[in-house]
């Protein structure tokens, strides 16, 4: 026979517990369903606990003058199955109020979804996971320390989607203290800043071999002698004068065209690179540019460039060939769309149709790195071809 618990009922609004003050029946007694069994006292009033169904009182577990919480078992009634069923007590015990575990973890029929506390808005955006997601606090902390997003690259984030939490960051900074630290020069910091800003764009590079023989012959006719990089610079200036749109900058939905063809060129200085500028490089022939070019190189090396000789250029030429490199993918300055690179010259076999044989030619790679938002490979290639053509006719430069 089922044993039906006698439970401390909810005796009224907000009543949490009640004290047993009198047992009206004793174990062994036969009782009717609804019969008063126990007198209890709450803060409000004296009330009675009634029999959940008819049957024999099996036992009372509750003690006189003790308090019991709502829902506590006070005793048991032995009842027939029929009697229990009559009072609806044959179903599994209901879940206790306040305990949400069973319902929150129980799949809903049909959908299988779960009732869970709703906390939305937390996932890190898919396009900004890992170290590229920075919380407002992380940003503020990094700004306080003068750090930039790139500095987070070395940190393994423990947050959602691998984001770097402030705790991760502080731990990383604390660990840095234990390693050898040297102060970066202001030049290094400036280059780092420029490169970091530049790298926010999709950059691509195209390359092309260019024959330098004509240039090498032509420079011997000049005094002072221009270097191959100046030929490349002048060729770039002439080509941009023909079509300046490719050197434009994309701002929002507009291409901002250059107002003058001022071209910079990279000069290595101690612990960094400087970029002096030849103003109006499309307006003066090569021979007239040489003296100014040489002067700017010297000033740059001494780090004495006047203010008007830097900045505001539309493109840069870099002669990485001076380091013996034949190929590189330089990065355009943040405010520029193009950087033209010139590799080291090498003597290469070249098939001569007329002679029907290989002939040696002096050849170097021209590279053009560009902001792919502004121009595509085709336009970059055409610009590079035009520069290459012009360099093969140096007398026209």
């Amino acid at each position, binding site marked *: 026979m089922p044993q039906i618990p006698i439970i401390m009922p909810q005796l009224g*609004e907000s009543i949490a517990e009640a004290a047993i003050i009198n047992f009206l029946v004793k174990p062994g007694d036969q009782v009717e369903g609804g019969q008063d069994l126990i007198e209890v006292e709450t803060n409000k009033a004296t009330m009675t606990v009634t029999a959940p169904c008819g049957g024999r009182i099996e036992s009372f577990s509750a003690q006189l003058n003790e308090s019991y919480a709502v829902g506590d078992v006070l005793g048991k009634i032995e009842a027939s199955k029929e009697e229990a069923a009559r009072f609806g007590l044959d179903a599994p015990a209901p879940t206790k109020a306040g305990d*949400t575990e069973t319902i929150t973890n129980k799949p809903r029929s049909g959908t299988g979804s779960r009732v869970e506390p709703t906390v939305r808005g937390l996932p*890190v955006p898919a396009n900004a996971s890992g170290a590229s997601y920075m919380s*407002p606090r992380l940003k503020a902390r990094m700004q306080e320390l003068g750090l930039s997003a790139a500095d987070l690259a070395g940190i393994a984030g423990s947050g959602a989607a691998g984001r770097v*939490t402030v705790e991760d960051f502080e731990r990383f900074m604390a660990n840095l203290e234990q390693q050898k630290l040297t102060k970066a020069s202001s030049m290094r910091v400036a280059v780092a800043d420029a490169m970091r800003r530049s790298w926010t764009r999709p950059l691509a590079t195209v390359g092309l071999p260019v024959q330098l023989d004509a240039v090498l012959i032509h420079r011997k006719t000049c005094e002072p002698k221009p270097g191959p990089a100046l030929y490349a610079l002048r060729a770039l200036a002439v080509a941009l004068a023909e079509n300046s749109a490719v050197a434009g900058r994309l701002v929002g939905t507009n291409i901002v065209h250059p107002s003058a063809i001022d071209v910079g060129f990279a000069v290595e200085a101690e612990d960094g690179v400087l970029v002096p500028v030849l103003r109006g490089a499309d307006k003066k022939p090569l021979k007239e540019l040489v003296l100014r070019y040489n002067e700017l190189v010297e000033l740059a090396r001494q780090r004495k460039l006047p203010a008007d000789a830097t900045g505001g250029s539309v493109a840069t030429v870099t002669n990485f060939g001076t380091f013996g490199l034949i190929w590189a993918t330089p990065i355009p300055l943040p405010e520029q769309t193009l950087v033209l690179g010139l590799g080291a010259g090498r003597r290469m076999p070249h098939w001569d149709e007329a002679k029907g044989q290989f002939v040696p030619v002096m050849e170097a790679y021209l590279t053009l790195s560009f902001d792919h938002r502004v121009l595509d490979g085709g336009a970059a290639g055409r610009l590079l071809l035009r520069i290459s053509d012009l360099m093969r006719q140096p007398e026209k430069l």
Partner: protein
Amino acid sequence: MSITYLEAIREAQAHALRDDPRVFIYGQDVGAFGGAFKATKNLQKEFPGRVLDSPISEDAMIGLAVGTAIEGMRPIIEMQFADFSTVAFNQIVNQASTLFWRTNVPCPITVRLPFGGTSGSGPFHSQCLEAIYAHYPGLVVMTPATVEDAYSMLLSAVAIDDPVIFCEHKFLYYHLKAEKLPSEALPIGKARIAREGRDLTIVTYSAMVHEALAAADELATEGWQVEVVDLRSIKPLDTDTVVASVARTGRLLCVGEAWPWGGVTAEVIARVAAESYGLLDAPPQRLNAKDTPVPYHPNLWAAHRPTARSVAAAARKLIRF
């Protein structure tokens, strides 16, 4: 010897009646019967002529209170349930709350709102209306979470020269006990750090403070130290204490038993986001009751409002962000 939250409220009223002849209590069943919750038990006997039964006229109860306040009295009005204060809404938000600003005559009334959910109370005996009253200028809204605060803040409410909406949580009436009544208290408008922690700040008030503390206990077993801020009064709202806590933890979870649209949790988050964006290492989160009327059955009710379990789940999610 221990004293419950409800007894503290009774004691505070007895204290106020004893100390200040201007104080009287007016409300339904508050007289010989001692109130629906017995918050005024024996007070009529102890203070004859000063604990008075009103007809079931919430609007007129508050109107009368305002009139007596004009005459220099300090009425305590018991709404039988906070839910019924909506009938008096006009008098509270248009009469009481505008009086001082319009006329320079203070309106020192205390409106006691037995509020919040308890098992089986259903849609019309469970509501949390603090945010609605806080929305109105000219009202002070208190939401004590402890026996000590229930006592000291009610004394403050009666002493304050402005209308005070005193939100006393019915769930805490009998559940919450203290050894003795306090002799001193934090000033009104100052929040309390109910538990210190460094990983997450939970800002909450009233009954939810206890759910948050239970959640913090649970998270402590997992190695997380959760700070719990008990706002005590939601208007004025102690932004400084909240911001200082977020400065320590970087993570903010606001928990309220009220409905989600607008309200205290939204207000706290808006203030932290606006004033201390740079302190947040994670999106501030809030946990409220569901956007439905308060359900009757205990199972539905327990899932409707935030509980220690759902607070812990939300906190865990936020800590892991």
